[in-house]
């Protein structure tokens, strides 16, 4: 059915935070995308057409994310966009995606309900924190024999505060775990260096476990303070904790989190990806020499791979006149049951726009993440079957 597109170019866009507080994410994302572009084109492109990924930086700022989405859609005439990353940017960008009729797929955003509110063009290749937490907490409680726990969260981060203030308390209650700070929640603000007061308070509650709902860069501050105050309570958190940087913060402490990807995962596709991209990232001047690909790199790699597959199979024409039709084709392909296989297994998108994929419950141990258990983000049986 697909026509031969030799000589043409199929363009996709990507919006990454390559400057500002998440610069490292964006810069690593860029490396992963460049690699993918090369791989696809070396393998014959998209039905003969060259694939091109136009990458813009939004500095994790909502206004710039929107500008870039418009620029990609209008000036660059891309067929679909990967990104933006942060939930704040996504909240503003998805309505514009709907307005313009172009797919926008976030690689990071895990704030509950964002894609669901922006049908039909907004998607997220992430799993809602609520779904993950529901499976992680019981597992964690059993493993560490948790009867009472205390929650600490980043009140300024929309995702972390939604999880910390609403989702985790509910899940603790559902699992019969006493929430020690239910009345006076312990929180801090993004960018805080000093969380000594919070940790002193946590310590004074003497919990069996600490629920840490924060982005890893903020979580490190908390873990460090726990270390300084000699607090040895196991920690459980959300996907936001996933980063190799967490591993160095408090190596003696068991830290458990859910994720759909981590660099040491023993799956062939992941190994190939990691082995391919790690040296490229480490060769970049603006990235640290010890960097490892993160969950977000895997996610954005999957997103554009999926675009490529959609373009191939749904038969885009890459003709300027068919732009709107091509975009719709990609959207329809994404919304339908497909057989796309990502790095960690099958990936599809539920009606709420979020990914359905398998995930792993991992624990930090000896400076690495170790997988403890595999699960599926969808309650339906075999939704994640390989």
């Amino acid at each position, binding site marked *: 059915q697909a026509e031969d597109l030799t000589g043409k170019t199929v363009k996709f866009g990507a919006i990454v935070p390559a*400057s500002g507080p998440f610069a490292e994410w964006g810069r690593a994302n860029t490396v992963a995308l460049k690699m993918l572009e090369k791989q696809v084109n070396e393998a014959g492109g998209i039905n003969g057409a060259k694939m091109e990924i136009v990458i813009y930086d939004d500095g994790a700022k909502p206004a710039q994310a929107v500008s870039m989405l418009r620029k990609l859609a209008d000036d660059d005439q891309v067929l679909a966009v990967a990104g933006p990353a942060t939930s704040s940017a996504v909240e503003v960008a998805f309505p514009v995606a709907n307005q313009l009729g172009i797919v926008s797929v976030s690689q990071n955003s895990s704030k509950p309900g964002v894609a669901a509110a922006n049908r039909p063009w907004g998607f997220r290749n992430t799993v809602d924190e609520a779904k993950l937490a529901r499976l992680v907490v019981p597992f964690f409680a059993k493993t560490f024999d948790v009867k009472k726990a205390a929650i600490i969260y980043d009140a300024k981060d929309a995702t972390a505060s939604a999880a910390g203030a609403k989702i985790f308390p509910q899940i603790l209650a559902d699992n019969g775990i006493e929430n020690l700070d239910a009345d006076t929640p312990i929180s801090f603000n993004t960018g805080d260096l*000093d969380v000594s007061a919070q940790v002193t308070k946590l310590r004074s509650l003497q919990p069996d476990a600490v629920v840490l709902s924060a982005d890893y860069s903020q979580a490190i501050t908390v873990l460090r303070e726990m270390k300084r105050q*000699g607090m040895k309570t196991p920690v459980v958190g959300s996907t936001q904790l996933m980063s190799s940087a967490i591993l160095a913060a408090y190596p003696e402490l068991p830290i458990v989190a859910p994720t759909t990807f981590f660099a040491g995962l023993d799956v062939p596709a992941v190994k190939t990806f990691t082995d391919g991209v790690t040296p490229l990232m480490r060769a970049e001047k603006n990235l640290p020499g010890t960097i490892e690909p993160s969950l977000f790199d895997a996610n954005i790699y999957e997103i554009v791979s999926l675009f490529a597959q959609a373009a191939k199979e749904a038969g885009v024409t890459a003709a300027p006149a068919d732009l709107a039709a091509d975009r719709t084709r990609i959207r329809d392909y994404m919304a339908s049951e497909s057989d796309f296989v990502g790095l960690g297994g099958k990936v599809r998108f539920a009606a709420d726009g979020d990914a359905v994929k398998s995930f792993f419950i991992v624990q930090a141990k000896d400076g690495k993440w170790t997988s403890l258990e595999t699960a599926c983000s969808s309650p339906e049986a075999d939704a994640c079957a390989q």
Partner: protein
Amino acid sequence: MGVSIFIQQVLNGLTLGAVYTLIALAFSLVMGILGILNLAISEIFMIGAFIGFSLIMSGVPVWLALPGAMAVAAVISMVIARIGYEPLRNASHITPMLSTLGFSMILQNFATNTWGSDPMQLTLEGWLDTRFHFGLVSLSVVQIVVFAVTLGLCVLTALLIQRTDIGRGLRAVAENRDVSRILGVRPRRMILVAFALSGLLAGAAGVLVGLHYSVITPYIGVDIGLKAIAVMIVGGATNIWGALLAGPIIGILEVLTVAYGGAAMRDFIVYGMMIAILLVRPQGLLGGSSKTSGGRV
């Protein structure tokens, strides 16, 4: 239990307050005297932290890393004085403030590109890692170092400003450049001195913060910087001792709000208190009263 937690919290607050005090001093050296808000001080503080970190990580002892980072910070501050302040001295006081904002962007971008945006972590070893325990209360050697250095630098700065010709010269330049020149003061040199001193203090604060919290990112400057400005204002920008009083007040207030209220309300309380103090004492707690501003008809 309740009491020792409280004491621990007060100690936490004092440590935080000491950090604020140092940065507030750095601000007030240029603001209290020259009347300009050097927003880049936040970033100089951050760079100081990174330089200190890098030096310590590469094996330089702390007693050498501290002055090293302070020196680098002072040089950056002097560059800002020459390029970002001097040529703009005749413009309204907002213009140099914005040019220092430009420098903050440069410094932050530089740090992101040099050290990455992810947190940089330091593992302390040897005597620095020691902690003393008094029942449930604990105090680290680094905390003691933070207190001692803060107090020492405060006293030195105050002596310099209040007891020497340099202090008078600085105030003269601030009030009227031409008049100070016909009295023999060299404005360019004076301003360089003020900026250098302020850089030294910010750099010291950076290293101490790095040591104490042992995690830093290129973005630590902004929030702490704003708080430090609040501390300077609460204490009274024209009085060096103001920062020494207001730093611990704000530090403890902040920590106690977090401990017994909630972090979410913290900034609300802190800035609310700042405004309240300004309403009662428009020149800050120790700032000279408006009488000394010298206006008469």
